Every structure is written in structure tokens, then in C-alpha cells.
């Protein structure tokens, strides 16, 4: 269950990240158009909410919340420090 929540958190924060013009540009060399940005934001937020819910449901409210905060920290750290290197590879391919 923690693994599931981890995956949701990771994808969710990635979506939120790519909704931002600066990071969208890192990968696709242009900012996302308005509609795509809102879609990404919607997907990101919903996945984060689902991941909190999964955590709290599986581990009990208080502990679930603590675990999720930890997961969020871990996921975003991983994402942020990988992003610039991953972006270089991807944009080279595209």
C-alpha cells in the first residue's frame, strides 16, 4: 500500500511540476498551452489526494498522514534532483 501511495505521489508531483511553464520547457522546449497545463494540474492534484487517502486508509489516519508527508518529501527530492539530468536526456532524443 505504501508502494502504491509512493507511485501515486511521484506521478502526481511530476504532473504538477510539468504543468509549470519552466519545467514543461525543460522537456518539450516550450511552455504547456493553457488547457494542457490545467489538465496536468488536475491530474496532479487528484493523484496527490488519492495518495493521501490510500496512506490514511491503509495505516490509520494519524500515522498515514505522517507517512504521506515523508513520502511527499522523498518523492519530490527524487524528482527535483533527477529532473535536470533526465530532461537533458529526453530533450536530446526529441
Amino acid at each position: 500500500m505504501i508502494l502504491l501511495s509512493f507511485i501515486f505521489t511521484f506521478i502526481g508531483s511530476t504532473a504538477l511540476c510539468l504543468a509549470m511553464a519552466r519545467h514543461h520547457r525543460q522537456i518539450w522546449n516550450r511552455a504547456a498551452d493553457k488547457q494542457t497545463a490545467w489538465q496536468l494540474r488536475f491530474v496532479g492534484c487528484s493523484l496527490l489526494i488519492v495518495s493521501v487517502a490510500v496512506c490514511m486508509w491503509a495505516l490509520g489516519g494519524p500515522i498515514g498522514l505522517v507517512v504521506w508527508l515523508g513520502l511527499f518529501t522523498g518523492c519530490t527530492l527524487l524528482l527535483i534532483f533527477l529532473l535536470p539530468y533526465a530532461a537533458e536526456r529526453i530533450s536530446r532524443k526529441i
Partner: protein
Amino acid sequence: MREAFRQSMAWFHTWVGLVVGWLLFFTFLTGTLGYVTYEIDRWMKPEKPLVSAPLSSKDLLPLAIARLSAQGDQAKSWSIRFPGSRVRDELQVVWRAVAKEGETFGKFTLETLDPVTGAPVENAAVRKTGGGRLLYRMHYRLHYMPTLTAIVIVGICSMFMLMAIISGIIIHKKIFKDFFTFRPRKGQRSWLDGHNVLSVTALPFHLMITYSGLVFIMFTLMPLGPRIIYGEENRDLFFEEVFEREGRELMPAAQTAPIMPMFVEAEKYWGEGNISRINIDNPGRANAKVTFYPHQGTTIVRSGLEFNGVTGVVSEKDEKKISLQTYEVLTDLHEGVFAGPWLRLLYIVSGLGGTAMIATGLLLWSTKRKAKLAKSGITHFGIAVVDRLNLGTIVGLPIAIAAYFWANRLIATDFDGRQDWEAHAMFITWAALFIYPAWRPLERAWAEMMCLAAAAYLLLPVVNFLTTDRHLGVTLVHGDWVLAGFDLSALFVGGCFAMVGLKAYKKLAAKVFSDGKKPLTKKGDGPVVSPSL
């Protein structure tokens, strides 16, 4: 006005961070290791048996009761601690005598019992060591000084830490806009990005750990309030009320009901094999109380199932005061007592994040100033000193901790005072690593010490292999993941240091090549090598 406020906060953040940064780095790193205290402890006692299936608590209970009953009826409380969790692999009994006049607590006795005979065992075969526990205690008790002094020092630094965090939030203009931003290989820019990212992503953790750390020691840091209201002579009364402890007067004697039926009921409640500890308060008295605690609970605060000790019936627990509940939630969050293995890992990630946040902050201080000075071509003695202290702390401390582990394996087991010398080894190493960079060009010293750190950790499993029979070849085969995990973690940490160290050497070589001569022969000039970025 707004800009002026922000600027003054920036000044505050910079200088407070510098002054308390080195000590906080020590506190954060040793504190983070505290999340695996028991695992480190086991590694440092290689004479202990390899992991085996835990014995049934139900079979052990009669042995413990027999041993405790033999102590007579003068106990204030008994405690039975079962093996079978990460904190314990033995059966232990504890009894506390009734407090004598002038004592806050009565005498505390802890015994480890043989699981078959129930007789107390002397762990003479296990080497004397400070273990993970000493390392963990250092994060608030430091070393080589009285506990109270250390707590006050750490407490004051923690208060500044809290202020540094809050002022940091104020001066960070674009928390959300820059949330995902990290630009590598851009010198000072990268360091600032890194510092921001480490601070913001783990902000809940940083706030929680600092604030709850202060809550732990609030009675030491702010002693005057209770003293004024309760008076000097009634300090015990204050703590009795705050922590809802019972007074010291003894109730009349009364037969305590048999524990076994309660145990059966408690096991139904907490799940089979999930009883970790039984506390028996006021055994043999009219107000006897028996509480069962689980290995793995479902709430943040440790809660137990309570029985009336005389009737043997589950008793309705009084709701604790909200102030005490708050205190307990905060302190338990700090220690992560409720954390299973995954959450424990996340605690360590966040703790290391905090450690790295402090490290990047310290490095930023000098990179910024050197970037300014580089234009005018002046070198500054103060900056050179900060540079060396940074290096001695950020790379020196991990090496010193490795030295502590090395000493545990290399000092003869029958050497008198080996326990103390383990810690001496750690601090002698650390002192040496503060002095060493003074004679070296800074960039070279970074690369060299990174490689030394890599060697110290990569060779740790080798030393373990040469000195004990609890090496990876045995532990992996046996499936003892705690012991194997320690060695594997050492390899991982060593690997990380090696990568950064080699990168730093490459950078040095590239510089020598482009300059045509050895760079940086003068102290304190040039930017810091950017390890890991």
C-alpha cells in the same frame, strides 16, 4: 518597509546559520543515526546471536513473573519486556523500588533473563561498547561535558535553528514557483537551489523535528514558570501533575490477580504475538494496575490496554489531559517510535535532507563571499577559517563516525575502558580532520577527504570480515537483514563518497590541465569544489 524587513531577515538567517550551523550539523547527523540506534547497537555487539524466530511471550511470562516475585513486595512498579521486535532480542525484567526520602524515583534495576531457565544472565561475552545508543545520545548530550550544560547548549542552538527556518521561509521569495527548480553545474546558483530544495521539500519535517526537540527539553530551557507558581520545594508536585504520575504514598496491600488470564485477553486485543511490554504499577497493592503494550500500535502515541490489577478486569482509561497528549504526540513524532521500516526509512531520508540543508547553507556562506572577493582579488582570513571548519565538519564528521565503528572492531575486547576509547577514537579522528585541511589547498583537501571517507566506509565491511564472524558472507546467507543491512549501508555510503571524491579529482585535474600549473596554492582563494552538484 517590506524589502527592509526581508533584508534584515536575510542578514539574520545568514549569520545565525553560520554560528550554530556546525553544531546543528552534528546534532542532525547523529540524531538521524538515532533512528537506527538498535540496529547499530546490534552490529556493535557481534557476539550476540544471529536473528532467530522469536520465542513465544506466553511461555516467557511465567519465568519473568517468578523472577519479579522473588524481589519481594517493596516495588513501586514492575515491567516485563519481551523479545521479538527491533528494540529487543532478549527477555528483560525491570523493577523500581519505592522512592526513598529525597529521591524523585526509586532505584531502578534491569535484568536480562535466560529464556529457558529464567535465571538472570550476565552478558560477559558481549563486548563493552557505547553502541548506537551513545551515538544517538550525543545529539543532545554531546560528549565530554555534563548533561545539563550540553542540553542548554543544544537547546539554545535549536532555538536559533527554529528562527533560522522561519526567517528562511520569509526570505525565500518564490517557494511555490521555485519548488521544483534545481539547476546543476551553475556554481553558487546550484548551491542556493540545492539549499532551497532540501529546505522546502522537507519543511514539515524540519519544523516538526526542531520544535518537538525543544519541547523535549522545555522544562530545562524554561524553568522559571513552574518554579514561581509551585515554589522551589514543590518541583516534584509540578512534574507529578504535568505527567499525571501518582504521588508517592503507598496504598494498603492487596493480592494482585494472576497475570496470565489478562495476557490472554490482551493478546486477543493486540493480536497474537504482538505483546511487547507489560507494566505492573504498584504490584501487591490496592491500586495495582497492569498495562499491556503492543510491538506495533496503530496510533502515534504509545497506548496500552489497562487492567485493574486487583480484579483483573479491563479498566476504562481516564482520558489524559490535552497538554500531556500534545506533549506526547510531539515527542513521539520526534522519536518516530511508531514507525515501521518504511516510515523509518523516510525519517532517515528527511533527517539526511536536514543535514544536507545545513551543509549547503554553510557552504553558501563562503561561496557567496568568495564570489564577491574574487572580483577584487583579495583573500580573507575569516573566510579561509570558515572554509576549513566547513570541510572539517561536513566531511570530517562522517569519517569520525566511521572511526567510531572501526574502533569498535579493532580495540581488543578485553581492553580496559574500551567503551570510552571508542568515543575517544571518534573525537581524536575528528580533531585531526579539522587540523588537516589547514595545511592543504582547499580544493585538494575536499577531494582527499572525500576519498578518505569513501575508504573508511567501503573498508568497514572488510574490517568486519577480518575481525568477526558476523560478516556479509554469514549474515546474508542467514538472512539477518539488520546486520547485513549495516554492512550494505556502509558500502552504499562509501560508494557515494567515492563518486563525489572521484568527480572532485577529475575537476582538479581538468583545472591543472587548463591552467598549466597547480591551482590554488594560496589558502582560501577560489571557489569550493562543488561535490555532488
